[in-house]
């Protein structure tokens, strides 16, 4: 148990301590809540699933908080797993952090209140839905979904179990302040259009097979994705989208459309205040080989992707000064991570509530399908399908490799 009991362990210990104890009962400073740590009863017990490149960053953010008790890590890469465990043990100066290869074992723990998930994208939906079913709150890295169908399932699970589920993308609230402020301050009048430049599109992967490294559970890494042989570039967590990382390949990711799209589309839809909406139409343009998209929202707004002659987050408005609107902000302290923890405590919806995160991902996925079919699409957000478009509807989801199901 160490000197840093969990909230439940502390309560149990306190409940059984009686006057029959011969020696004085010593209460540690951390039990009372030392300067940098909340009392155990106030700490959120957390675990992490997927502790690679981005997962390490998330872990560090949560582990560094005095109101979090980090108790478990999970990764299919033994090196990542042990490294993540060592980080936790080092923080708390004990050996108590559990380390799992299988996320289901972590989610089965009743003592864990919340998890953060930074696996490759093709795993996100299964883990988030299962976490909700297990009574956990979730911080899920962007892009939150790999297919259109996954989004609604994740939102439904979050609402059904009244879970706090936050998407990732710390950049939405931080990187685009110039544009965001101009829009929300009313400087530009009624916003008519905004452009996002992002890419590249994902490709299919046909890399040759290599020997699976010792300590790497390739079958589990693949999970619901189609079976393909191991190659280090297939599963590299590099942030580059250059054919040498899982972010490059369509079985695991939507390429730059979803990876950086989560940031840029997220920032754009925040700036023009359509985070709560999904586009109803995507028009595919091919001008002398230059392909780009325009999305039309129910309120008439036009969001363009890679529009010729437009820069990233170039925005057009009617120009007349309008009254400013108060901008949604993070709650609590500590950016998007603090926002999540605050909401876990108060049960409010976080800044990047899963429904808003999914709406951003929908923009990416609609675009991916439009580019794959090289034509325009009409999207029925209420029914979550392409109106009367059997071919496009085939691409709303993809069969998951057994035994994984959603």
């Amino acid at each position, binding site marked *: 148990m160490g000197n840093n009991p969990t909230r439940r362990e502390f309560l149990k210990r306190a409940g059984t301590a009686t006057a029959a104890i011969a020696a004085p009962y010593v209460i540690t400073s951390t039990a009372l809540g030392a300067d940098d740590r909340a009392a155990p009863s106030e700490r959120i017990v957390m675990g992490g699933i997927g502790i690679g490149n981005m997962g390490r960053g998330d872990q560090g953010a949560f582990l560094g908080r005095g109101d979090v008790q980090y108790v478990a890590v999970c990764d299919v890469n033994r090196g990542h797993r042990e490294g993540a465990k060592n980080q936790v043990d080092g923080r708390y100066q004990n050996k108590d952090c559990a380390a799992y290869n299988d996320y289901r074992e972590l989610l089965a723990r009743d003592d864990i209140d919340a998890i953060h998930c930074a696996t490759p994208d093709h795993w996100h939906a299964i883990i988030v839905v299962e976490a909700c*079913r*297990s*009574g956990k709150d979730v911080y899920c890295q962007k892009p939150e979904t790999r297919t259109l*169908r996954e989004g609604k399932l994740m939102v*439904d699970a979050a609402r*059904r*179990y*009244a879970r706090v589920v936050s998407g990732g993308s710390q950049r939405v609230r931080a990187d685009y302040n110039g544009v965001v402020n101009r829009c929300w301050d009313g400087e530009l009048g009624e916003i008519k259009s905004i452009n996002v430049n992002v890419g590249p599109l994902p*490709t*299919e992967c*046909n*890399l*040759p*097979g290599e020997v699976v490294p010792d300590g790497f559970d390739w079958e589990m890494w693949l999970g619901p994705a*189609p*079976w*393909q*042989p191991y190659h280090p570039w297939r599963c590299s967590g590099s942030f580059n989208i250059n054919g040498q990382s899982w972010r490059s390949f369509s079985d695991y990711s939507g390429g730059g459309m979803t990876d950086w799209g989560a940031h840029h589309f997220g920032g754009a839809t925040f700036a023009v205040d359509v985070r709560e909406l999904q586009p109803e139409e995507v028009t595919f343009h091919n001008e002398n080989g230059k392909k780009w998209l325009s999305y039309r929202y129910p309120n008439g707004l036009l969001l363009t992707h890679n529009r010729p002659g437009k820069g990233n987050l170039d925005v057009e408005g009617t120009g007349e000064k309008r009254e400013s609107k108060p901008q949604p902000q993070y709650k609590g302290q500590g950016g998007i991570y603090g926002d999540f923890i605050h909401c876990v405590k108060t049960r409010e919806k976080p800044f990047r509530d899963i429904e808003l995160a999914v709406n951003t991902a929908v923009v990416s996925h609609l675009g991916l399908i439009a580019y794959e*079919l*090289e*034509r325009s699409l009409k999207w029925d957000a209420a029914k979550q399908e392409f109106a009367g478009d*059997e*071919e496009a*509807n*085939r*691409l*709303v*989801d*993809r*069969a*998951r*490799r*057994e*035994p*994984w*199901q*959603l």
Partner: protein
Amino acid sequence: MNETLDQAFEALKTYDWGQETKLVEPIEAAIVASEGDAAQRREIEARLVAVLQGDAPYDAKQYACRRLRVIGTAASVPALAALLTDERLLHMGRFALERMPLAEAGDALRDALGKVNGKLKIGVISSLATRDEAASVAPLAALLTDPDAAVARSTTQALGTIGSPAAAQALTGGVSEGTKAAVAAALLVCAERALADGKRAEALLIYKGLAKDDQPKHVRLAAKRGMLACAGRKE
């Protein structure tokens, strides 16, 4: 068919891991270009089916299934159905069939249920769940008490995904403790669907059953929220 496309299909016959994807890219381009041209699409489909039925490498057959996912018609269902009893190719057969809006695709998957076991059966169950066809409820319900606990759990989840009144009725039969959590999760979905369809009484009955003390706290919470929703109230 043009020479470039012919070369691509020739390359596909021996397509394997490590080869350049550009060898077969003309096939994808042809699919895009044939949008609206049923005859050309059928010709492309037939050539992809021929790859499935031949002795091409696994990679080539995986590629063919990916393309048939988009353009496959009833004509390709028999070849895809034949993959459903192949441990290596079952998933890719499902990859093409699962999203096909064709009765033949659903029939092929239901037919495969009795031919496979273990993990393969779970794969078929998963696809039937996603297809959400009324005809799947009875054959799935028969698997709720499958001696393979993983199959029983998968079936439970599948019936929840379908969420119909018939699925709910099947789920409320006697279940083993091992699937109790899965049943609760599935019934919550069924109740939601009933409520969305205006069947408050049915939804309330399910929610009341799940609000009892023998359920974990988060399930009881979900059930009580559901009961409030049935009463037209939010918490």
